[in-house]
Each structure stands twice: as structure tokens, then as C-alpha cells.
């Protein structure tokens, strides 16, 4: 399918063609999905037996689309005496207001038909081309059509009904209607979804779905409550607004969260809770949308591992990686109930808890999650130190369906030596050690301030100090002047230069004397493309400008690195990274992709998008929010917000108003001091000129 339209609310979404029709094959991704199950695989509208053609599409909101259609599919002649409008809104399932206008001077008689079918494929089955083990059925009655599927106790049903009288059969519904001259006919089609037990009773008592009006009001409130951005860099304003709207769409409310939301990982295929993605997106969003972090912390805490389970790679204290709700998870054919195979979510959980408190002053949450934070710290020492040498390692125990690489670079070839060889397992990637260090330092602060346990705080700081010393000895490649990407199973250095080394600045594990050398590498032509810092240096054997984790530029990666640069005082470099990525955003109408090619900026002049199935991606959506923080130099200090701006060249003024936090609401302003040259107000064109001339920062 060449063009697709998606709308969604939570993890319910529709992927259709531009006519609004759904025609899925077992491996095609069209359909109405909810809780990782395809509840409609066919939904095709015909008028007098003819398919329709699209005149235009209004993407009204992320949860609502309107299709303007005419009967017939001919490219030369289109019968314009009839207009057909499909207005579709997600509300648990969806409702579709189907309207037909007769533009003729005579009445018209029409056969209107919707063909409906459901294959109840699990998302994993669509991905892996697997076939169903249960049986589908249809049932007519109660003024509608039920499409169902059952496998043992697992039962899912789709209910189709109509506000206007319709003739239902097992394959859909039909209307025989007459529309007066210049008249109009309309019906509302309802598609409802249920998860049932074998006896037909619902598995859960679900709360009511939000109405169309509630969804609209909620989106307006969301944007109104966010800080207001003003600047003389118009693309940044576009990007900011895009991020706010996309973040609204990316919100996911777990069934236990009573309507509170956290960021899912990506739309539409990753609309579920993820440890790493939900935490990092919450971190990025703290200055703008602090509520996301609270739900993330509570919901991940409520699912923290409590036992050893090899199938799910679960350990006590471990924070989950991914939750799924489909049939394969239900029958334990996939481990996602939830799956725990991630090595970074656990320390990052503690990092987020501390950072969240610094912004919001929410002491209650810090007290509520004391046990979870301590269990997370204990996991680092008791379960993640696979080699018993004080580092955080990973190696999956589920060798069939578990994840091999349990760091954010989770593709098979992401962790390599300079000569291209891949290390064995377990692996201890460098950024994990930084996260562990940061988690302990931050937990120590919380222990002292809130948990009344100064002894525990002392112990954590001592451990963190020792880890930092050990890390700077074992990971530092002195002849090259940067940190090894990882240690291999023999304790040897995996010596490729990768962006992971930039995360270390953010975590604070870099010794001050080594920082300048690290920064020089990050900003070198081998790493910095002009748009951003590459995942892998161009000098490495596995470098590929369009290799997923071996040469592309990831906006979220850069946002964390820029934060780290600021922490170590490299303001100009941080601004330069922010400028590169935000310039790139302008080429995507403000919506940063997951990754783009590592090509030299001067070479391509525009960023080459890496093809991925999900857009928007949560941590790319969060990246501009974090860049705003780093450019303005926002840092909570007690009950005050420190503002210490360092904006990119070409930006005259930048202000963020109504920043929420423990201080109430405050404004942050930045004005460039020296540059009075009018041409300076011309990002991004200016920045590309500057970069071509090789003018630093």
C-alpha cells in the first residue's frame, strides 16, 4: 500500500488507505488494531458496486480523519454528481460518520455497502508471518454483526452496528437508499471491540472511552498548559508545536493508570509501555510536560521484577523492557507479559526519579517509590554484575525470543571493535556504567533528603566513586583519548569510537581531565556530520551512513549528549549539536525521524531520513524539548530554576514562558549578546554556510 493514513487513541489505531478502506493481507499492516490485535482486516466501502476515489483528506487530529470521496476509480472521468464523506474517529474502536451528498437535480437510488472482516492477527504474527491457531466466527443479531475469534479461553470480538437501518450479513452490511435531489443521507457506523473469556464475560471492566469532544478538549488543554515558546527562529516554533502535538498522540494510558498517561515508544506499532523509551522520553520532557514522568515511574514501578524467570529475562528489581497484550503473549509464546530484557531501564528509572523530584518537588512519589528505587540499585549489584567485577553486564537467558543486545543500540552489529569484529557475551557497554554511576549518586541524594538513611547514602556514594575510578581505568583507551564502547567477556576493550561515549558526559562518570578529549572526538569530522553526532565514527570498519546503529544520527542520542556537554561546561558545542539537529527538523516539518543518514551535511545539504515504520517516535519527539533545556541552560536548584542560556549562532532571542515546576511557573529568556548582524537571523541557511566554511561552533 503506497499511502497510508493512521489515526489513534492510546493503543487503538487504524491504518487505512487514502480512501479510508482497509484491505489487509496476513502480512500487510493495514487494519484496526487494539491491544496488539487486529480487530478489522477488511473495511471496504462501495457505492453501487463501485469503489471510490479520493478527492482530499483532512487529518483533523491524531484521533480523527475525514475522507472526501467520489464514486468510481477512473482517472479520467469522475462522476461528480455524488460526494461521499467518511469522518472517522477513534473511541475504543472507531465510529465513522458516512455521508453521501446528491448534487443532481433528480433523486438518486443507491446501494451502499461495507464489506467487513477480521482476522484477529497478533502484531507479532503480522511481523513474523505466522498463522492463526484458533477459529474465527461471525454472528448476526442485536441489530448488528459480530466478528469473533476463539482459541481455548482466548476470545476477541468486533461488533459492527449502524445508526440507520442496515441489512447485515456475514460479510458486512448494506443500505438501499434514495437521496432526494440536492439531498443528503448519513449514518454513523460503530465498530466496538471486546476481550472476552470463553463464557462470553469480559476479561476486564474497562473504563469508558473518551468521546470525540473529550479528546478534542484534552488536546487543547495539553497544548495550553505547556510552556509558550517565542523566538526569531521560526522553524523552532514549528518544531516545538509539532513535538507537543505528537507527544499528545504518543500518550498511552496503561489499564492500571486510571487515565493518567505515559509516553509510548512510537506510533503506531510501539504504542505500549517500554522501560527505556518511556523513561528517556519522560526525562526529555520534564521541563515542558512533567506529568509524563510521574506516570512512567508509577507504572514501571508497579511492574518491577520480583522473581527469576528466564523466559522473560526477569530478575528481582529489574525494570521491564516491553509490555504486549496480543494472543502470542497471552499463550506464553512470546515473553512480553512483560518482558524484562533491557540493561539500562533499571538504572535510568532511578535517574528519572531523582530528576523528576528536582523539577517538581514531588516528595510523595519519592517516598512511595523508595522500595522500588532501592530494589533497582540492588539489581545493579546483585543481578547485573554477571562477571563479578563491579560492572553492569547483559546476556539474555531467553535465547529464542529474548533480545541479544539489551542496550539502546539493540541491532545485531551495533557493538563492534574498530576492525569490525563483534564481541561475545556478556557485554558491558560503557553508557550502562555511566547510568549505574548516576543512579547511585542520585539515589544517595534521595536517601539523605527523603529516606532518612544517610548510611545508605554514604555507601552508595562510596560505591559510585569506586565505580568511576575503576571505569576510568578500565574503559579509557589512553592512546586514542576516548572511552571504549564496551568491555568484552574477557574484560578486553571493545575499542570502536561510538556515540555511547557522549552519554558518559551526561552521567557525570567522565573525569574532568578527560572531558576535553572526549568532546574533541565527539565534535570531530569523524563523529559530527554537521547535522549531529553519528552513532559510530566514520573511521570504524562497520561505519555505514545508513546503518541503523553504525553511522546514522539519532536525534534522541544527540539530545542526551548535548545535555552532557552542558554539564561539563561545553556550552558552544552543546548549542552546535542542538542547532544541527533542529536545523534538520525543519526538513521534516518539525517532526524529527528516529534517525537520519550519517552523510556529511555539506555533501547532501539535507538530512536523509532512515526508513522506519514508526513516526512519530517518542524520543525523537522529546529531543527538541530537551534541546530547549540545554540551549536555555535550565537547571533546577532548590526551589529556583537557573537559566544560563547559550543559543546557537543566528538566533537572536529565545524565550520559554510558563515553565512549570516546584517554583510555580517561571519564564526563561535568552538573547544573543554580540551578534547584531541581521543575516545572523537566518537559521538554518546560515548554519549550513558556517559549517561549510568549517567555522567552529
Amino acid at each position, binding site marked *: 500500500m503506497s499511502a497510508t493514513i493512521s489515526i489513534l487513541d492510546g493503543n487503538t489505531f487504524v491504518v487505512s488507505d487514502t480512501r479510508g478502506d482497509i484491505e489487509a493481507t496476513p502480512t500487510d499492516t493495514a487494519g484496526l488494531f487494539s491491544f496488539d490485535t487486529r480487530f478489522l482486516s477488511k473495511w471496504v466501502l462501495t457505492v453501487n458496486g463501485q469503489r471510490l476515489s479520493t478527492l482530499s483528506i483532512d487529518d483533523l487530529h491524531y484521533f480523527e480523519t475525514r475522507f472526501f470521496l467520489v464514486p468510481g476509480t477512473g482517472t479520467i472521468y469522475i462522476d461528480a454528481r455524488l460526494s461521499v464523506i467518511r469522518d472517522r474517529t477513534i473511541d475504543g474502536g472507531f465510529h465513522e460518520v458516512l455521508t453521501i451528498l446528491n448534487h443532481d437535480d433528480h433523486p438518486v437510488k443507491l446501494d451502499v455497502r461495507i464489506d467487513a472482516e477480521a482476522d484477529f492477527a497478533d502484531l507479532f504474527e503480522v511481523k513474523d508471518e505466522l498463522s492463526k491457531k484458533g477459529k474465527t466466527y461471525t454472528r448476526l443479531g442485536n441489530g448488528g454483526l459480530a466478528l469473533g475469534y476463539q482459541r481455548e479461553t482466548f476470545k476477541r470480538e468486533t461488533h459492527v452496528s449502524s445508526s440507520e437501518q442496515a441489512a447485515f450479513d456475514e460479510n458486512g452490511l448494506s443500505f438501499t437508499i434514495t437521496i432526494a435531489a440536492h439531498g443528503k443521507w448519513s449514518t454513523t457506523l460503530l465498530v466496538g471491540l471486546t476481550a472476552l*473469556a470463553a463464557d462470553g464475560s469480559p476479561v476486564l471492566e474497562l473504563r469508558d472511552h473518551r468521546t470525540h469532544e473529550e479528546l478534542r478538549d484534552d488536546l487543547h488543554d495539553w497544548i495550553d498548559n505547556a510552556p509558550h515558546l517565542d523566538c526569531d527562529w521560526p522553524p523552532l516554533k514549528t518544531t516545538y508545536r509539532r513535538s507537543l502535538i505528537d507527544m499528545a498522540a504518543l500518550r498511552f494510558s496503561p489499564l492500571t493508570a486510571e487515565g493518567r498517561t505515559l509516553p509510548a515508544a512510537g506510533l503506531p506499532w510501539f504504542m505500549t509501555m517500554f522501560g527505556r523509551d518511556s523513561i528517556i522520553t519522560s526525562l526529555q520532557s520534564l521541563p515542558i510536560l512533567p506529568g509524563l514522568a510521574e506516570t512512567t515511574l508509577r507504572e514501571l514501578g508497579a511492574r518491577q521484577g520480583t522473581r527469576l524467570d528466564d523466559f522473560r529475562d526477569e530478575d528481582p528489581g529489574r525494570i521491564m523492557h516491553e509490555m504486549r497484550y496480543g494472543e502470542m503473549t497471552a499463550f*506464553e509464546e512470546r515473553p512480553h507479559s512483560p518482558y524484562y530484557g533491557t540493561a539500562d531501564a533499571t538504572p535510568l528509572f532511578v535517574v528519572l526519579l531523582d530528576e523528576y523530584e528536582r523539577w517538581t518537588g514531588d516528595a510523595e512519589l519519592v517516598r512511595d517509590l523508595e522500595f522500588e528505587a532501592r530494589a533497582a540499585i540492588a539489581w545493579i549489584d546483585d543481578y547485573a554484575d554477571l562477571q563479578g567485577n563491579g560492572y553492569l553486564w547483559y546476556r539474555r537467558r531467553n535465547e529464542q525470543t529474548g533480545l541479544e543486545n539489551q542496550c539502546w543500540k539493540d541491532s545485531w552489529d551495533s557493538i563492534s571493535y574498530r576492525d569490525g569484529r563483534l564481541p561475545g557475551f556478556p557485554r558491558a557497554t560503557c553508557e550502562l556504567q555511566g547510568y549505574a554511576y548516576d543512579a547511585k549518586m542520585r539515589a544517595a541524594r534521595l536517601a539523605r533528603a527523603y529516606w532518612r538513611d544517610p548510611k545508605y547514602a554514604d555507601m552508595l556514594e562510596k560505591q559510585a566513586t569506586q565505580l568511576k575510578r575503576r571505569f576510568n581505568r578500565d574503559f579509557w583507551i589512553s592512546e586514542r583519548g576516548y572511552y571504549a564502547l564496551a568491555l568484552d567477556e574477557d574484560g578486553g576493550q571493545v575499542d570502536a569510537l561510538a556515540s555511547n561515549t557522549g552519554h558518559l558526559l551526561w552521567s557525570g562518570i567522565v573525569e574532568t581531565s578527560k572531558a576535553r578529549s572526549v568532546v574533541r572526538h565527539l565534535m570531530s569530522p569523524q563523529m559530527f556530520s554537521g547535522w549531529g553526532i553519528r552513532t559510530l565514527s566514520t573511521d570504524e570498519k562497520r561505519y555505514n551512513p545508513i546503518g541503523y546503529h553504525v553511522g546514522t544520527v539519532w536525534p534522541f542520542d544527540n539530545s542526551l549528549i548535548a545535555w552532557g556537554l552542558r554539564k561539563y561546561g561545553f556550552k558552544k558545542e552543546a548549542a552546535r549539536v542542538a542547532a544541527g539537529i533542529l536545523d534538520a527538523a525543519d526538513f521534516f516539518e518539525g517532526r524529527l525521524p528516529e534517525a537520519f543518514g550519517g552523510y556529511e551535511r555539506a555533501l547532501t545539504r539535507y538530512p536523509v531520513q532512515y526508513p522506519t515504520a514508526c513516526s512519530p517516535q517518542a524520543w525523537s519527539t522529546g529531543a527538541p524539548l530537551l534541546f530547549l533545556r540545554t540551549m536555555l541552560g535550565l537547571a533546577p536548584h532548590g526551589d529556583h530554576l537557573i537559566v544560563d542560556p547559550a543559543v546557537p549562532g543566528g538566533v537572536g532571542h529565545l524565550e520559554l514562558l510558563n515553565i512549570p515546576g516546584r517554583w510555580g511557573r517561571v519564564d526563561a529568556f535568552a538573547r544573543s549578546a554580540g551578534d547584531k548582524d541581521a543575516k545572523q537571523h537566518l537559521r538554518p541557511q546560515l548554519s549550513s554556510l558556517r559549517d561549510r566554511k568549517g567555522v567552529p561552533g
Partner: protein
Amino acid sequence: MSQVAEAFLTGLSERGDDPSLRKITGTIRIDLRNNGKVDHWHLTFDGGKVSVKQSNNAAKGSRADCHMITDSELFERMAGGRANAMAALLRGAVLVRGDLDKLVAFQRLFPGPPSKRGSRQ
């Protein structure tokens, strides 16, 4: 009623200071179906203390914040670490009425699979 399930449930009140218990406040009713008969268990969680009551019919109408309904045989496997409660919920083998978050917290008390290897090797 199997011994494993019974030992698990009665053992809840003897766990001592288990932080996982402190995470639950309120009542959970568990109905275990077995050949047409139903065993009712009523659990009250309060600040880490658990009181456990069993009855064959008296508690039938008793209210709880969270009401879990499943087969004895499946509950025994969950209590022995051989079945996962969240997966069972998704496939309709466990039904929940009332607060789902209490069930999510409760199922964390089940042990892991008996054959686990653990991380360190």
C-alpha cells in the same frame, strides 16, 4: 483445593516484612473453580500485614476491591511458578472485576519458574 495453592495463600500472612506486600492496600477476593465447586478466599492487605480467610460459600457475596476468578488447577500452576498470571489474564483464563492494579501487584507475589537459571552463570 491443592496443597500448593493453599500453602501459597495461607503463607501470605506468614511472610514477615515483605515490601511487596506493603505495596497492596485493600481487599482481594479469589474464587477458585474446581469441578463445579468454588473455593472462596478473602485477602485483606494493610501496611504489609495480610489476613487470609477461606470459605466454601459464606464469602460468596462478600465484596472486595479486586475480585479474581480462575480455575483451581491454573491457580496452582501460578502459585508454583509454572504459569504467568498476566498472560492468563490476557487469554481469559483469569477474570478480574474491580481494581486491576491490585491484581498486577498481587501476581508479583507468585514465585518464578522452578527451572530458572538466573543471571549469573
